[in-house]
């Protein structure tokens, strides 16, 4: 089978409409109502609502999460899934670990040693780029330019940029993150939702 067909085969299935369970918290519903006043149509709320869903569903846009967004905005599942899978910051493919470490290896970072940081992370965590540690704590991804080239090589974890990093500072970062029980992936989604809203609240 060609690689493309395999990717198609692995795509998660849409939940049956009857089995839809709405999981947005009252706060999330309030936030969504505030967002709706920002645009002349509902469709424009898709991106910010996907951010809300990513937070509400623990950092992962599962088929159920996408179905809820589609339901709340009166769009089709296929349309919302199509939008969600286009953007790299929506975690649609699989559930990331509690902490997602994104390593920039683009031009300036490449030339300032980002690949040694990749090696170090892979070795230290025993996983490859794109994978999650078995205990579900860490995921590492390679990302394109984070636009913080003055801090090359730079990483993003949650809503924070960290850089310039060395293998030593990466070790410290890993220790700090390991002892942080809160998901920085969820934190990032929450921060993104908040900046949309006046006074940081709905």
């Amino acid at each position, binding site marked *: 089978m060609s690689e493309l067909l395999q990717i198609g085969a692995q795509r998660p299935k849409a939940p049956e409409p009857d089995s839809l369970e709405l999981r947005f918290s009252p706060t999330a519903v309030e936030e969504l109502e505030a967002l709706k006043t*920002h645009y*002349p*149509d509902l*469709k*424009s*709320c*898709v*991106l*910010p609502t*996907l*951010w809300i869903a990513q937070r509400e569903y623990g950092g992962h846009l599962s088929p159920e999460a996408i179905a809820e967004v589609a339901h709340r905005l009166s769009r089709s599942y296929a349309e919302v899934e*199509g*939008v969600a899978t*286009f*953007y*790299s*910051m*929506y975690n649609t493919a699989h559930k990331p670990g509690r902490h997602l470490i994104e390593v920039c*290896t*683009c*031009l*300036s970072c*490449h*030339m*300032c*040693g980002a*690949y*040694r940081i*990749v*090696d170090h992370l892979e070795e230290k965590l025993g996983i490859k780029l794109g994978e999650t540690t078995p205990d579900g704590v860490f995921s590492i991804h390679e990302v*394109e*330019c*984070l*636009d*913080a*080239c*003055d*801090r*090359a090589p730079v990483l*993003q974890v949650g*809503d924070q*940029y960290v850089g310039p990093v060395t293998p030593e500072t990466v070790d410290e970062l890993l220790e700090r993150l390991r002892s942080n029980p809160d998901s920085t992936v969820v934190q*990032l989604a929450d*921060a*993104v939702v*908040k*900046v*949309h809203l*006046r*006074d*940081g609240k709905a």
Partner: protein
Amino acid sequence: MPETKLLFEHAHDPQFRTLDGYLAKGGYQGLKKALGMDRQAVIDQVKASGLRGRGGAGFPTWIKWNGIEKEKKNPHYLICNADEGEPGTFKDKQLMEQTPFLLIEGMTIAGYATQADAGYIYIRGEFVDAARSLRQAIDQAYVQGYLGKNILGSGYDLDLYIHMGAGSYECGEESALMSSLMGERGMPRLKFPHAPLPTVAGLWDKPTVINNVETYACAPFILDRGGEWYATLGASTKNSRGTKLFSVSGHVNKPGNYEIEFGTTLVELLDMAGGIKGGKLKACIPGGSSVPIMTAEQVEKAVIGYEELWDDYKTMVGSGGCMFFNEHTCIVSLIWRTAQFYAMESCGKCTPCREGTKWMLQILDRIVRGHGQKGDMDLLLDVTKQIDGRSFCGLGDAAAWPVAGAIRAFPEEFEHFIEHGRSMVQSEEAKAMAPRWAQPAFSH
């Protein structure tokens, strides 16, 4: 010329991020003057200033503002393109974090001139700190009557909204940005002359002005001190006026943003950034990864200006993402990584870009793996010609230029890599930069 600080004069003052601190430093004088003027007079000031778009294309700003219908029949919109994604660029991030009110005031001026009802600031999803700073500033502006209904008693109303992206370089392209804002995949739309300009039918098919963060941030100065005053900055160049923020990174001692007047030389910019680190200067990408690379020899004489860089070196000011590289940099490896960026970020809408970027990456990949074949350089150039000018939007062109430019500027490096299966640059430093699988190409 030394650094000329206009936008960044108070950037490091934390008070400048608050409305009171901004007002204390003369903030909102530009808007006050604008609100007392006829709308056309505001646009005329911007015309006199010679301001050109700071996002990369350098399009005259006043033409966009002037293109909005004067007899208002529809809602009008304003968009700020803060989806800074060009590798090497990080100026808009600092502008939003440290001088948010310059952007807000600039957008309010543009909104007044074009009778906009609402403005959307489209910020890339990663820039949470920038968005937070802007959020705070917008909230303060609302409380004190600088946004919302009847701004400063003028009868003009404007609402500003923040809209976060979610990870897509393509959304920096204006029509793709509008698709994304309207809740779609970030893919570009047909452009003029095949479709109306955004100023006629943009966001939700209504007249829309879309400018870069830095462009808006220039407006308060133009309105406060006059377009003619602004045009005296950079007067030594052919047609570039004002100051420009350059994000300097790569092998320099003091990477960061530097604000320079047009007409400054690249060597002066390099000096501001503390000079080259870890060896001699080898190459420079002056305006973000999309623009063709320059050799050290070219850098020696280059003057920064839109026409100056294009006419003499066929490269561009672009977004101002200036990267300097030292002698241990393997150009082939650098261009391989650039090609990977565009292959990853191509939105997939049109064939030349979707396929072309992947083919360029595959060819460069085999060269870097030591399996380059005779004729690969011609093949690469051929692919760049199939993309350049044939893709649906500028991303394809932007992917083709750096590859073609590097082959033009450093042909011997490509020839050597293909012929010997190893990089021309053989040093421990070069090896230390390479991905693990490519390291054999850098060992003796």
